[in-house]
């Protein structure tokens, strides 16, 4: 992987409210950033900007590599068993079925592979969304509150997955309120004093 991500003087305006301006960030392969800030400061908007889901009005974003986005929703078909729901995205991402079982194992979901997605608890569907990101094999992970609803074991698994992804040359940007151990992550604090 030769992933890279550069934000230059990035600003975000939602409605007529300016959420943040002049945000600079440069991440090379293996880099990470941790986005923090109060509710409504624009953490999710920042991730959606980078993911290309919101139009950029100020500043610029340059991205090398593919993107995986884990937002508020797991984006898995509720009626399907977990494994088949994951398979839809994994096939779109051009990966083989082995990636699914590996990702399920990494998030300790192997026993739930045949359970319909609608039966999963909050923490389990969060883990399922992370499994989707892991299985997709994208270069840049954008994680919105990845630690929400996770128990201690799952959070350790998340931290391990992030560390391994970075060791493989991937980039991780996580927005979170929870303490999340991402060594040497570039801190991005938005919304304070703005």
């Amino acid at each position, binding site marked *: 992987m030769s992933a890279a991500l550069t934000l230059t003087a990035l600003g975000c305006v939602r409605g007529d409210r300016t959420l943040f301006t002049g945000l600079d960030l440069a991440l090379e392969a293996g880099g990470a950033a941790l986005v923090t800030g109060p509710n409504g400061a624009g953490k999710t908007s920042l991730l959606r900007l980078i*993911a290309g*889901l919101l139009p950029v009005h100020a500043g610029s974003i340059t991205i090398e590599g593919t993107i995986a986005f884990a937002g*508020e929703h797991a984006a898995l078909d509720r009626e399907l068993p977990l494994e088949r729901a994951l398979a839809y995205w994994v096939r*779109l991402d051009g990966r083989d079925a082995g990636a699914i079982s590996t990702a399920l194992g990494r998030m300790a979901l192997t026993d739930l592979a045949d359970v319909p997605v609608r039966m999963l608890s909050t923490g389990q569907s969060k883990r399922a969304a992370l499994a989707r990101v892991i299985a997709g094999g994208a270069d840049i992970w954008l994680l919105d509150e990845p630690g929400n609803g996770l128990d201690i074991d799952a959070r350790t698994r998340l931290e391990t997955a992030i560390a391994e992804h970075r060791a493989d040359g991937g980039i991780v940007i996580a927005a979170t309120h929870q303490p999340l151990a991402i060594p040497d992550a570039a801190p991005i604090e938005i919304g304070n004093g703005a």
Partner: protein
Amino acid sequence: MSALFAIARRDLAQNFAGSGWLLPLIFFLLVATLFPFAIGSDPTILGRVGGGVLWTAALLAALLPIDRLIAPDRDAGILDQYAVRGISEEVVAIGKIAAHWIGFGPPLMLAALPASVLLGMDAASLWQLELGLALGSLGLAALAVTVSALVAGLPGAGALAGLLMLPLAVPILIFGAGALDEFQQGAFALLGASALLLLAIAPFATGAAIRAMRE
């Protein structure tokens, strides 16, 4: 291209798994059953109005699936996931229109067989109706996906969808019912033209609506 195929296949599988395709079909047959009760069973009257009744029923049946075409995928974050993968909103729209038509058009044409018997239509009119429905349902399916994207997430989306869709579908109704009249020679061609126009505009209108709803 493979993304388009995957999207259409997923939507189609969901449509048939959730029995969503049955609803318009049952509605269509119900109208055909109710009409003879309302206006009596005189075959000459029924034969005269039957085609128009079935076209109106088809139009109203096209409204039923609107709330499940776009909104559930928007709420579940599926549409965002497509965008993150670089799949354009227009490709998503084409996949959804194709899947929706397969679950809407052919079942409607099938239902038209018993419905035409209930309304005492002759074989020639039935043939014209089937041909018309094949074309018209393309336009109606495209319009349904477009309107579904336009109203997704709005309060009172269902009622709004009807107000938006029915006026836009009027050409399909006029030319579709007109094509059953042997004295209106050009109606069938105009039905085709209006259906194809709707089909051509729909992916772009739907794509723009999906992008706009992220703001």
